[in-house]
């Protein structure tokens, strides 16, 4: 799919916006060790990417914005951000897939945001696997079993905690999707020249 220069500039600006959020807000949240920092960043980023998808109505626009953001993050923080880069790209690809498969509607954007943001739950497993290989998984399974024995937590409680976590991630993502849809349409309307054209 060939993009016009204007669309590429828009993609660059949305990538820059997401990158700015990752670099500024992300650094602060991670430095302060705020819980669910990844979820907040992911929600904000996906809202920006989905807003961009309304203004650049082309297949692949969200994925392109995600790629640009990942490279912006790589270059701005010095390269030691392998995990967030993978996360950004996968989240944008998930959102792209949902928006590409469904009709262009608010519900599709809601689902895209929810699925993309839910990835932050699964992300540590993938990056752990890449960095640590199969051994990493084995160690953490053993650690979980030991911790469960130590805490005396019933497996059903683990399921409950996981359920609440998943609901939280899906909820934040759904809100991001709706905000992205609304913001995109408001911005598109305001950027259009007034009817009748300039005098």
């Amino acid at each position: 799919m060939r993009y016009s220069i204007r669309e590429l500039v828009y993609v660059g600006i949305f990538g820059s916006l997401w990158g700015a959020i990752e670099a500024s807000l992300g650094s602060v949240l991670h430095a302060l060790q705020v819980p669910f920092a990844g979820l907040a960043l992911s929600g904000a980023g996906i809202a920006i990417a989905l807003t961009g998808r309304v203004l650049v109505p082309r297949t692949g626009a969200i994925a392109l914005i995600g790629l640009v953001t990942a490279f912006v993050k790589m270059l701005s923080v010095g390269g030691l951000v392998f995990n967030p880069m993978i996360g950004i790209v996968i989240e944008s690809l998930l959102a792209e897939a949902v928006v590409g498969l469904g009709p262009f509607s608010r519900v599709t954007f809601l689902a895209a945001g929810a699925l993309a943001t839910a990835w932050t739950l699964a992300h540590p497993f993938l990056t752990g696997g890449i960095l640590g290989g199969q051994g990493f998984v084995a160690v953490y399974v053993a650690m979980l079993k030991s911790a469960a024995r130590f805490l005396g937590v019933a497996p059903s409680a683990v399921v409950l905690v996981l359920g609440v976590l998943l609901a939280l991630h899906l909820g934040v993502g759904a809100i991001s999707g709706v905000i992205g849809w609304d913001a995109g349409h408001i911005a598109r309307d305001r950027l259009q020249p007034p009817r009748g054209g300039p005098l």
Partner: protein
Amino acid sequence: MIALSTTGRVGCLVISIAMGVVAGGVRTALALAAVVACAAMTHPRALRSVANLRVVTLLGLLLIPAAFFGGARDVSVAGVWVSRDGVFLGAQMAARALTILIAIGAFAGSLSIAELSGLLERAGLRGLGFAMGVAINMLPSVTDTATSVYHALRLRGGFVRRRLRGLRLLLVTTVIASLRHAEDIVAAAEARGFAVDRVRPLPLAWRTADLAMVGALLVVGGALALW
């Protein structure tokens, strides 16, 4: 210091990551040693950049839980019982993580935006290099815009009630303020005759240093794979 071309750096990155991911056991340490040697010769700053608290914490998180929960605790270190198998496994994970971090650090730290753009164009991602250039150049301006809009909304009580509406307003205002510059960039690009179809991809060129470094890494990687 050996100066590599972009092609050589890509080759070193690919082989280094492959070695880090595939090597197991003692071979992980050898893969790390090879990548450290490569980084020291081509981009020493990458080695300094991993010596920070964040990376040390990451390595600690890989090593310490493994030492305690990675198997039966059969060795006493300063009065603390740890698992020998767990320590070995944790060290292997830490070495693998460090290998990947150094390889990526050396690649990203030594590559300019122009080189990266050319590389992406060569990879078939037409227009991505241009979009990335726009993103990097717009980053300070976009950050300032977002910060100003956030403070303006906060000072006017934009997030006190109806916070979701406040967030939407923040996003809309930031997007519109940032896109104001878009028309100027489009006009500037068109005035200079830029067209996505006419972008020249990065020429693939191998220097002697590239061949030597990539060849050496290939030999080490091959030896580790056959061992």
